[in-house]
């Protein structure tokens, strides 16, 4: 480095947006612990989430035109330095995650007060912020190893958050333990894969990796690395046969955490899968296309049906939703495996629509749990009469889960069917409709219990607190709004799909 005065152009606040989105919650997490006051923990967490949300809205607005933002950590240019690289796909995922966090935090305040002991409250919000930071970091980073680190930050804090459900039901502890084992195996597979790629190419930057992999199409090391990465991320995504950690983890976690991770964690993992399949490895490579066609697609279809069937026979509302999540992940993977722009658009738009739908439903169940003490169908009988507003939101969420026209769920399934028909795969379109019929059955079971039965005499008849109803209805409203006004989500998803299909683009050395 040269001695003496050095020329330097100062960066403005706008240049810092790609790092700010991750940094704000990351700074807030230790602050919450350091201050350690129960009443300050929530406002800090909420302000941080709000800050991230505003930044991600600005980011999405900036990159919608097709511009790619590149931020150089510590001023070190890629491929040596760590790069944060924001294109439409990233920005869209950042927006989903931060929007969900902003809506769920007010809800969490009401439910945490009841479900957790007071002394854990600041640590709960610190962990929530760390999980949130991890998810945002995974979405924002353009460096494969950095992605692993953020993935582990979010996973480790999620394990603890799930285990906090142990105050209500001790099975949360074993659920968290199983998730820890499976998640760690997944993450370790992922770094083995990254290691193989590094061996073959000598780089960790995703754009640089893509350029170098393109020169080595028949390299066995890269094939092995690809296999490890797909299986590793597959565990985090909960692709059907790798889903075993998911049902118990979602069922026994604290209500707010169920809603948060169901809406974000698997979605971010799906994004990582898309990023690796389409940006780092291009689908015109034989082995990527074969993997998608012969492995991902059959398992996606299997998951759609098998998980929906299991969901029908559950006695527990929350567990039913968990299995339905696995089935819905099938739709996203199906969209990815079609390998077309429309298919990818369907997958991305379903990321968003399923996130808001599941957030609504899990928040509704959380409100039920608050009053009835359990999420079994038997203990939810007649909730439609005692908690009318909450239950009405459950109907909206349920319709969106099925994919009834006028709700968000319909849009993504419509695009998915279109993508299948585009390639003359009418049987896939039929299967999508058929599995939606299974969703009708399991949603109906819930509706029947909540509305058609009489509440028991000894039940707590108070409605849910306002702090819960407002977030629930913001999400339920979003389910309807994005079912009618499709330009925003569908447009952004289409841009994101185009960006992903176009490959990673050149290294941006001149960025900030």
């Amino acid at each position: 480095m040269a001695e003496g005065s050095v020329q330097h152009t100062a960066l403005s606040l706008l240049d810092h947006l790609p790092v700010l989105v991750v940094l704000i919650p990351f700074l807030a997490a230790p602050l919450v612990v350091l201050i350690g006051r129960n009443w300050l923990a929530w406002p800090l967490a909420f302000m941080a989430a709000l800050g991230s949300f505003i930044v991600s809205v600005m980011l999405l607005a900036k990159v919608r035109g097709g511009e790619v933002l590149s931020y150089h950590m510590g001023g070190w240019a890629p491929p040596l330095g760590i790069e944060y690289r924001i294109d439409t796909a990233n920005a869209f995922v950042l927006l989903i995650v931060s929007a969900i966090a902003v809506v769920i935090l007010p809800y969490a305040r009401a439910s945490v007060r009841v479900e957790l002991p007071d002394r854990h409250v600041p640590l709960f919000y610190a962990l929530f912020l760390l999980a949130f930071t991890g998810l945002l970091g995974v979405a924002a980073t353009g460096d494969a190893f950095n992605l692993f680190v953020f993935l582990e930050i979010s996973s480790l804090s999620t394990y603890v958050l799930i285990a906090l459900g142990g105050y209500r039901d001790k099975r949360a502890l074993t659920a968290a333990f199983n998730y820890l084992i499976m998640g760690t195996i997944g993450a370790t597979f992922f770094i083995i894969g990254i290691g193989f790629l590094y061996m073959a190419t000598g780089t960790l930057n995703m754009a640089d990796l893509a350029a170098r992999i393109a020169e080595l199409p028949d390299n066995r090391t890269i094939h092995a690395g690809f296999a490890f990465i797909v299986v590793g991320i597959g565990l985090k995504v909960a692709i059907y046969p790798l889903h075993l950690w998911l049902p118990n983890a979602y069922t026994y976690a604290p209500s707010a955490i169920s809603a948060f991770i169901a809406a974000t964690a698997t979605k971010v993992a799906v994004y990582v899968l898309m990023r690796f399949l389409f940006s780092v490895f291009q689908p015109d490579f034989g082995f990527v296309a074969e993997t998608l066609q012969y492995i991902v697609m059959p398992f996606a279809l299997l998951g759609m049906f098998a998980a929906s069937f299991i969901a029908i026979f559950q006695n527990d509302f929350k567990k039913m939703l968990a299995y339905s999540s696995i089935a819905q992940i099938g739709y996203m993977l199906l969209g990815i495996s079609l390998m077309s722009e429309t298919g990818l658009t369907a997958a991305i738009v379903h990321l968003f629509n399923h996130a808001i739908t599941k957030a609504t439903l899990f928040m509704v169940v959380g409100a039920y749990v608050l009053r009835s003490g359990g999420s079994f169908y038997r203990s939810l009988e007649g909730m439609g009469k005692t908690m009318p507003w909450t239950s009405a939101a459950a109907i909206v969420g349920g319709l969106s889960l099925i994919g009834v026209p006028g709700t968000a769920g319909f849009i993504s399934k419509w695009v998915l069917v279109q993508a299948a028909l585009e390639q003359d795969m009418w049987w896939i379109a039929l299967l999508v409709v058929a599995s939606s019929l299974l969703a009708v059955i399991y949603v109906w079971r819930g509706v029947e219990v909540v509305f058609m039965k009489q509440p028991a005499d000894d039940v707590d008849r108070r409605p849910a607190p306002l702090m819960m109803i407002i977030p629930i209805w913001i999400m339920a409203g979003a389910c309807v709004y994005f079912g009618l006004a499709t330009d925003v989500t569908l447009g952004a998803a289409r841009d994101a799909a185009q960006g992903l299909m176009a490959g990673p683009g050149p290294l941006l050395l001149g960025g900030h």
Partner: protein
Amino acid sequence: MTEFTLSFIVGHMNYWLFTLLMMTGLYIVVDKGNLVKKIVGLNMFQTAVFMLYISMGKVTGGTAPIFPTDMNIDPEAVYSNPLPHVLILTAIVVGIATTSLGLALIVRIREEYHTIEEALIQKIELEKATREIREFGETMGGPE
């Protein structure tokens, strides 16, 4: 097709060891019923990956990548690649966090279930689930 000559086998020693250690760890995680042993297996599994990375950074004849303090750098000197070590330092920290969290969960599990054997835990959970189905389960078509 590569021939399995002696030099091929010896020359790829680090990969053989990596595979052996990794599969041993994975086997322990899958097979053993004791939760602490599962964590031990998980640790072995992760250590195998550390070994893979660190052996990858070795450059034949390379020395430690540290410049002398007077910055008199020998242009002929060959340095090992330090990047894999740095990555693994991070991965080790993640590994420690995972291990301690896993052990902490085991402590909590033992307090609640009074056992750390997976088979017994599953038995307790099954009993609990059966009880719940009897109490809360909706009978579908069957006798009430």
